[in-house]
């Protein structure tokens, strides 16, 4: 394959990474934005989403697609509910104190990870995609007669990969509509802006926090269910998404959901492309360097506000 088509294929891989990362990181960003909680266990909610997706599909007989569709609804719901319990019985009990929540969520990370290991074992588990047709992709080649459409051998993707991108975009759009157009979105934003004044207007901040923590975890789980037909599920898979999500949230500007999405596309595409051309390790090194540069030149992130 020539360089052009090869780069196109790599970008497509990058777009998948970006799509899943955007979902995961937006979850982390919402939790930080509204609750001021740095959730170190966020990657474990992602991992749990993936492992539960495998477990659910393995329990459901019949067409493999059926298991997947059940999993994509049920796994995020279970993870979200679990996160709400963690909020009520851990974070709420320590009053969302910034330092103690970091320590508590580190503890939570290991509890979730080891419980998953003990329950489901250490093996990496595949999940079958609900559909997976190969789709050949066209490429525009400049010739003497102008641009010509060609179909390079080997330049292809699958219908499932395109579905992942479309699904992530749709979910993020829905989330944006909820945040900007609905009553519950208004309540979440008011709580984020001034939780004391929110209380003084009848908003039950504890309920909002539980909801946001559940939603954040469910978004990570959703990203994981989408990815699990492409990468296998196993109990240590949470660390990369956690690292990348933190990078994305910092570059995007703490608490800015739009910034998080933009940064996720930037980092996801870079990660995907560099991983295809070089190695995944180099991709992580570059992403980390990028954070360092952003922190030097724009300490509040690309879309961050100066905080007092």
């Amino acid at each position, binding site marked *: 394959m020539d360089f052009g088509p090869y780069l196109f294929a790599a970008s497509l891989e990058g777009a998948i990474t970006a799509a899943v990362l955007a979902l995961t990181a937006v979850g982390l960003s919402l939790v930080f934005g509204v609750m001021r909680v740095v959730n170190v266990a966020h990657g474990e909610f992602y991992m749990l989403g993936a492992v539960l997706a495998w477990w659910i599909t393995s329990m459901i007989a019949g067409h493999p697609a059926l298991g997947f569709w059940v999993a994509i609804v049920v796994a995020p719901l279970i993870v979200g509910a679990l996160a709400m319990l963690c909020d009520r019985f851990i974070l709420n009990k320590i009053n969302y104190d910034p330092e103690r929540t970091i320590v508590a969520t580190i503890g939570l990370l290991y509890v979730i990870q080891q419980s998953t290991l003990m329950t489901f074992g250490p093996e990496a588990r595949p999940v079958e995609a609900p559909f997976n047709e190969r789709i050949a992709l066209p490429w525009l080649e400049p010739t003497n007669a102008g641009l010509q459409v060609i179909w390079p051998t080997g330049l292809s993707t699958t219908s499932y990969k395109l579905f992942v991108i479309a699904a992530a975009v749709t979910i993020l759009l829905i989330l944006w509509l909820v945040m900007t157009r609905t*009553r519950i979105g*208004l*309540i979440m*934003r*008011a709580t984020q*802006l*001034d939780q*004391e*004044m*929110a*209380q*003084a*207007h*009848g*908003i*039950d*901040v504890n309920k909002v926090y539980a909801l946001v923590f559940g939603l954040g975890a469910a978004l990570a789980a959703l990203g994981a269910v989408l990815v699990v037909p492409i990468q296998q599920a196993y109990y240590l898979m949470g660390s990369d998404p956690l690292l990348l999500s933190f990078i994305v949230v910092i570059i995007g500007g703490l608490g800015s959901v739009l910034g998080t999405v933009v940064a996720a596309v930037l980092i996801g595409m870079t990660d995907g492309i560099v991983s295809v051309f070089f190695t995944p390790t180099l991709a992580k090194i570059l992403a980390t360097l990028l954070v360092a540069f952003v922190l030097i030149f724009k300490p509040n992130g690309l879309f961050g506000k100066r905080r007092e």
Partner: protein
Amino acid sequence: MLTINKIDVAYDQVQVLFELSLSVSRGEILCLLGRNGAGKTTTLKSIMGLLPLRAGRIEFDGEPLNELAAHLVPTKGIAYVPQGRRLFSELSVQQNMEIGLMTSGAGKETKDYALSLFPRLQERLKQRAETLSGGEQQMLAMARAICTKPEVILLDEPTEGLQPSMTSLIRDVIVQMKQQNVAVILVEQHVDAVLSIADRVTFIEHGTNADTVQAAQLQENPSLIQQYLGV
């Protein structure tokens, strides 16, 4: 009637209010005066349930407010216009008012009424609160509170940093609320700005209520102002 009965309030370990008591009736304007740091803002926050009481009671029509979770206090008809306005800065004028409406489940008439008091907000419904001028922000803070259809309104220095014409608009609205039988607690630094509309004045000193006098009495005999505020 709202009564505050010998409340003790502390921030962490530092006690700020000591056996503070006061009361206000429907259709009455009670003015709280006191030096910086006397505990006026702390008193209002305590009424809203935003600070826990160490001792004492706060009752509204016999119902103990201090036993409620903070978010339930405003649903009992207590509205709060805080010092420094504290609008939801990134939300629009309209959205700030909607949050007020949600508190009481009030409808469009309440919002229209609030806008009729502050017509300048009508032209700026889509504008973000943080981009309003200082005077407009104060109008919005009051409009947001009025949207909760309050029976008691707590106002913390609503004329701080405003020019005279704006001050008199705010004052007119406060008087109108009194006429609609709302109980008003008004915290002020500028005695001249409020003495004409207040019914009673309670002086707060070192975290407790000192003298309470009729406002008319104070106008005739300003020596108490000298004593408590040093002006």
